[in-house]
C-alpha cells in the first residue's frame, strides 16, 4: 500500500499572491477586484471585457530569483510563485543542490496566450521582424520547463493539456512517478493567464462567467506527514459518455465519499446553471466550497485552486476528508479525494 501525501501548497489567484490570500478570500466570501481589458478592433470598435486578474506582485521574494524568469510571461511567473510557495525554502535548496529529485507535472488548458497573441500579431504584420524572444515562450511546456530550470532538476517534467478537469490527471501522473521512484517529490502545477483574446473567447460560452487567472501548486511526496491522496479515479471522457450527468454520476461513485458532515466538497461550479447541472444534481448537506463561483473561471488553474482551497480548509477546520471535482468543458470529468 502506498502513501502519497501533500507536503506543500501554493497559490496565486485573483484573491492575491499566496495560499493565505486565497483562504482569507474564501473564509470571508470576498469577491475579487474586477478590472476591464480594453482593445480597439481593426474596425475602430472598442471592446471591453471584465476580468478578475491577479493583483500586481507586491513582494519580489515570492518569486525565486533566476534569470529564466526574466522573460517569462505571467503564466510562467504565476506557476513559479505557486511552486516556490509549495516547495518551501528547504526543499527548494535541496532540489538545487541535487539532494532532492524533483519531478514537475504541469497541467493547463489555455497556456501561454499573452506571448502567442503578441507573437502572432507580429507575424501578421511582418514575419521578417517577428521576435525570436517571444516564440519559445509561446510553447505549452515553457512554464514547466522554467520550473525545472529554476529548481535545477533534471527529473521528468511533463506538461498535460486538457480542459478544466485536467488537474486530476496531473495528480494521478505524479502519484505514478512517485510510486515508481522516478522522483523523490513531485510538483503538480496548474498555471493560467488571461488577456483580451482568452477573456473574449470565454464570453462565447457565457457572459455570466468571469474570466480569471492564477496558478495552483501541490507538492506530493511518498510517506510524508501531510494530507494523504486517497483516490484519483479514471476521468470519464466525453467520447465514451457524452452525457455530463451520467458521467458525473460515474465519477462520483468512484470517488466513494459520504456526506457525513466531516467531508468537505470543493466543487467546480461556476454560477452558470447549465454548466453546474451535473455537480448540482448531487444532494450534499455537508460543507461545500465553490471557488470558481467566488474568484472567477481560471480555466486549467481552477481545479488546482479548488484543490489548494480544499486542503487549506481541511487542515484549518479539521475535516476528515476533502473531495474535489470538476466537470470539464469538452474533454471529461474528474475528481480526487484527500484525507488526514
Amino acid at each position, binding site marked *: *500500500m*502506498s502513501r*502519497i501525501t501533500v507536503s506543500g501548497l501554493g497559490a496565486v489567484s485573483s484573491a492575491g499572491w499566496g495560499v493565505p490570500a486565497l483562504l482569507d478570500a474564501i473564509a470571508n466570501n470576498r469577491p475579487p477586484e474586477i478590472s476591464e481589458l480594453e482593445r480597439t*478592433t*481593426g*474596425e475602430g*470598435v472598442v*471592446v471591453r471585457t471584465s476580468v478578475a486578474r491577479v493583483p500586481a506582485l507586491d513582494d519580489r521574494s515570492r518569486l525565486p530569483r533566476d534569470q529564466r524568469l526574466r522573460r517569462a510571461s505571467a503564466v510562467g511567473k504565476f506557476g513559479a510563485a505557486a511552486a516556490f510557495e509549495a516547495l518551501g525554502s528547504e526543499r527548494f535548496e535541496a532540489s538545487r543542490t541535487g539532494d532532492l529529485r524533483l519531478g*514537475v507535472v504541469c497541467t493547463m488548458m489555455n497556456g501561454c496566450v499573452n506571448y502567442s497573441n503578441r*507573437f*502572432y*500579431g507580429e*507575424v*501578421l504584420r511582418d*514575419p*521578417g521582424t*517577428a521576435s*525570436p524572444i517571444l*516564440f*519559445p515562450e*509561446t*510553447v*505549452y*511546456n*515553457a512554464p514547466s520547463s522554467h520550473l525545472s*530550470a529554476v529548481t*535545477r532538476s*533534471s*527529473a521528468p*517534467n*511533463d*506538461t*498535460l*493539456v*486538457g*480542459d478544466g478537469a*485536467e488537474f486530476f490527471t496531473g*495528480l*494521478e*501522473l505524479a502519484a505514478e512517478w512517485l*510510486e*515508481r521512484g*522516478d522522483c523523490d517529490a513531485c510538483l503538480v502545477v496548474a498555471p493560467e493567464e488571461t488577456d483580451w*483574446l482568452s477573456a473574449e*473567447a470565454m464570453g*462565447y460560452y457565457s457572459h455570466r462567467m468571469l474570466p480569471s487567472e492564477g496558478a495552483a501548486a501541490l507538492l506530493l511526496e511518498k510517506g510524508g506527514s501531510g494530507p*494523504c*491522496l*486517497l483516490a*484519483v479515479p*479514471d*476521468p470519464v*471522457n466525453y*467520447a*465514451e459518455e*457524452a452525457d455530463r450527468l451520467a458521467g458525473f454520476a460515474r465519477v462520483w461513485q*468512484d470517488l466513494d465519499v459520504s456526506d457525513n458532515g466531516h467531508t468537505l466538497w470543493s466543487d467546480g461550479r461556476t454560477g452558470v446553471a447549465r454548466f453546474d447541472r451535473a455537480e448540482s444534481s448531487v444532494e450534499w448537506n455537508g460543507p461545500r466550497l465553490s471557488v470558481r463561483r467566488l474568484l472567477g473561471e481560471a480555466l486549467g488553474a481552477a481545479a488546482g485552486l479548488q484543490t489548494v482551497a480544499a486542503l487549506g480548509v481541511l487542515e484549518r477546520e479539521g475535516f476528515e476528508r476533502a473531495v474535489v471535482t470538476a466537470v*470539464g468543458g469538452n*474533454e*471529461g470529468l474528474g475528481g480526487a479525494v484527500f484525507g488526514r
Partner: protein
Amino acid sequence: MAYRADSKLPSSPRPVVITGAGIVTSMGCGMAANADGFRAGRTAFREVDLFDVSGQRTKTAGQADLPDKPALDALSAKEWERMDRGTRLALTAAQEALGESGTSGGMPVMVGTSAGAMPVGEEFYRHALNGGRRGQFERVERYQPQRQLTTMLRALGVGGPLRIISNACASGANAIGHAFQMVREGKAERVLAGGYDGLAQLVFAGFDSLQALSPGGVPRPFDANRDGLAIGEGAGFVVVESVESALARNAPIRASVLGYGAATDIHHLTQPNPEGDAALITMTQATEMAGLEPGQIDYINSHGTGTPLNDVAEAAAIRRWAGNDTPSIRVSSTKSAIGHLLGGAGAVESVICLMTLDGQWLPGSLNIREVDPAVEFDLVREPREAEVKHVLTNSFGFGGANATLVFGKEAGE
C-alpha cells in the same frame, strides 16, 4: 490509470508489445507508402501553400497531402470538415494502427502534440482583430486539442481516459513511453498512443524567427555545414499492448517495447546542453530498462534536426553513452527526408523504427556532403539492408524535454 492509496503496488514488469501501427507524413499515407519512400531514400519537401510564406526566409516544408475522409460511420462529413489539419492526420494514422491491431473500444489514449489545433486558433485571432463574431464560438471550441481528439476518439469507437502530453518535440515519444509504462505495470492491457502536428503559420514563423530553418529548405543532419531544420507534418500511432492480451486474442505482434527514459535538460529554453547530459540520462535509462548494452543497439533513429547545436550535442551524448562501441553504432536522421514533425516526431520516428525491424533495412541520413567531425558513429548516409534486432529512438524538445525509446524485434523479449 486510476490511483488509489489502498491499491496494490505495481507488480513485476510485464512484457509489452506493439500490435498495430499507423503513419502519415509528407512521404505518404500509411505504412507501406512510407516504408517504400524511406527505403528508396526519397525526400518529401515542397513549397508551403497553406499560409503566406512570402515574407519568410524559408518557404518549404514537409507538407503532407491531406488524406480523404475515412469511411467511419461515427464521423460525419461536417465533423471531418471541422477537424483541423493535425487531427485529420492523427485520425488517419490512429485508424491504421487500430485496424492492424484489430481492436477498438475502451482503452486509455496517450497523445503527444505541440501545436494542437493551432491553425484554428490563428483563424479565431484574425477574425477577432477585426471584431468579427460569426463562427467564433465554433473556432474557440475547435482550437482546443482535447475537443478535437475527443471527437476523433468517438469517430474511432475508442473510449477511455485521454492524456494529451505537450512536451514540445518530445511529446510523441513521451506518449508512447507513458503507454508502455502503463501496460508494463498492469494498469492497462492496451493503450492507443501516438503523436501528431500539422503545419501552422505561428509555428513556422516562430522557427523562422529563430533562424532555425534551413534557408535552402534542405536539412542536412550531421553535415559539417548544416544550416537548420525543415518543418514537417504528420502523425504516428501505435497500439501498445501486454503480450498476454495480444496472444490471447491472436493479435499481430510487430515488435516489443523494451525501454523508455525521460529527463529534463535545464541548460537553456531552446538550446541543448552541448555535452548532451539529459540525452545521456535518457539513453542510459532506456537501455538499462531494456536490459541491453549500447553495443546491442543495431540502429539509432536520432533526433537529428540539422541545427548546428542539436546534432553536435546528440553526437556527444551518443559517444558518452556508447563508449568504445561508438564506431559500430549505426545512426541516421529521417528528418532529412520528411522534416521535423515537432510533437509528432517522436511517435512517427518510433513507427519508422518498427519498419526497420520489420523489413531489416535502415533509412538514410540524406543530403550530406561532408560529415561533421563530431560524428564518431556509423552514420547511415543512404538506405541499406541490415540485420536489426534492437533499435533506439531519441527525441529532444524545447524546454529541455528529452525522451528515448527502445524497441526489439522479438515478441515478449
